[in-house]
């Protein structure tokens, strides 16, 4: 009975500690401010993630103004702050447990779509090992392995979001090359036709004058 409890307890703890927070990378449209909340279970957990501004219409200038990213702790302090960026990775150690607020602020009127990924990772410390005798040192190693794999997955999600943005730019370039060139040809032909018509008109008047 005791052994059964011990095994179940270990399994529960493993399940909770290793797969406490696993989230997919979602995209949200930021009009002015968009906030997302994520719960951090333990103090000292590493909160990591990334975000990329995916959908934005560049027209004239290629300098994207960027969006601001702020992380607020449950106590109200700003834990992390990024200004005027069109995509970045972030990582910080949570000073306390609780509900953290991740906010995107768009200073411009055009809505932007932001694709973000947030991961809260917990690795059992020596303190946790000392407190609970069912926690094996192997759990620490497994947790570290798990966190390393999570960081690879996070990097992949970042690359995927950046690739989506690059693809958007490429598609826009392709459409512009075709569209603007055809319009250019048509306008050129039109301009020369107008020129010819104008010259004809000029000469038809002066012929009338010459008759006099």
């Amino acid at each position, binding site marked *: 009975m005791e052994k059964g409890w011990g095994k179940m307890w270990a399994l529960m703890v493993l399940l909770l500690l290793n797969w406490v927070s696993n989230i997919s990378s979602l995209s949200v449209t930021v009009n002015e401010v968009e906030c997302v909340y994520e719960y951090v279970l333990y103090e000292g957990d590493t909160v990591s993630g990334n975000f990329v501004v995916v959908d934005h219409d560049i027209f004239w200038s290629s300098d994207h103004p960027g969006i601001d990213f702020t992380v607020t702790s449950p106590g109200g302090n700003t834990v992390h702050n990024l200004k005027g960026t069109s995509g970045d990775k972030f990582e910080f150690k949570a000073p306390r447990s609780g509900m953290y607020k991740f906010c995107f602020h768009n200073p411009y009127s055009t809505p932007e779509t932001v694709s973000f990924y947030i991961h809260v990772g917990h690795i059992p410390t020596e303190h946790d090992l000392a407190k609970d005798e069912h926690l094996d040192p192997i759990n620490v190693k497994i947790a570290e392995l798990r966190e390393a794999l999570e960081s690879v*997955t996070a990097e992949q999600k970042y690359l995927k979001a950046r690739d989506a943005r690059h693809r958007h730019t490429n598609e826009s370039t392709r459409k512009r090359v075709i569209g603007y060139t055809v319009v250019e040809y048509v306008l050129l032909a039109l301009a020369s036709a107008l020129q010819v018509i104008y010259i004809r008109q000029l000469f038809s008047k002066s012929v009338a004058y010459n008759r006099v």
Partner: protein
Amino acid sequence: MFFGGRAVSLLPLILVLCLTSNSNILPVAEALWLTIPSSGTKCVSEEIQSNVVVLADYYVVDENNPDHIPTVSARVTSPFGNNLHHNENATHGQFAFTTSETGNYLACFWKDGSHQQDAELTLGLDWKIGIAAKDWESVAKKEKIEGVELVLRRLHGAVEAIRGNLIYLKDREAEMREVSERTNARVAWFSIMSLGVCIVVSIVQLWHLKRYFLKKKLI
């Protein structure tokens, strides 16, 4: 967290509740919280490949009045506009589907007409795709593995997912490189052609005007 010897036996039960419960008693650690505005919809989307399992769970979080929880409506649409899930006036719900096409999947939530107060609503969303949506409990039961072996099996699944993602990114990069190179060739070709069009148009102009002036006996 560890209150004493007697409470220790209750802790696995609490942990089970944490992992499986959808109620508002304990905060579910796995979810993301969004705020639904009092008017308008809040949409989240993700670009997903085809043949991927999507499993999502949403619930209203309201600590202010636990006896009168506001309700939300949800709609999930596929990239081609098909309605995958539609639910009205619910405090919680879930949907699961396997994607049939690659594209942007959109999940929209809005407040119900009967609860049009000024306060914003907090919605918890637990969105899992691919390997994260895999039901490991049933795999553990079916193959009778547990503990460290199950953990390592999950890590193996995660590594396979990483490899799959890497191949996908590689294919996408190759596709994009092709588009870039084609665009580059087109820019060169169209620019030279524009010079050609310019010359042709000016020759036509001169020819037409010369013919016109000859006809009008001006030259």
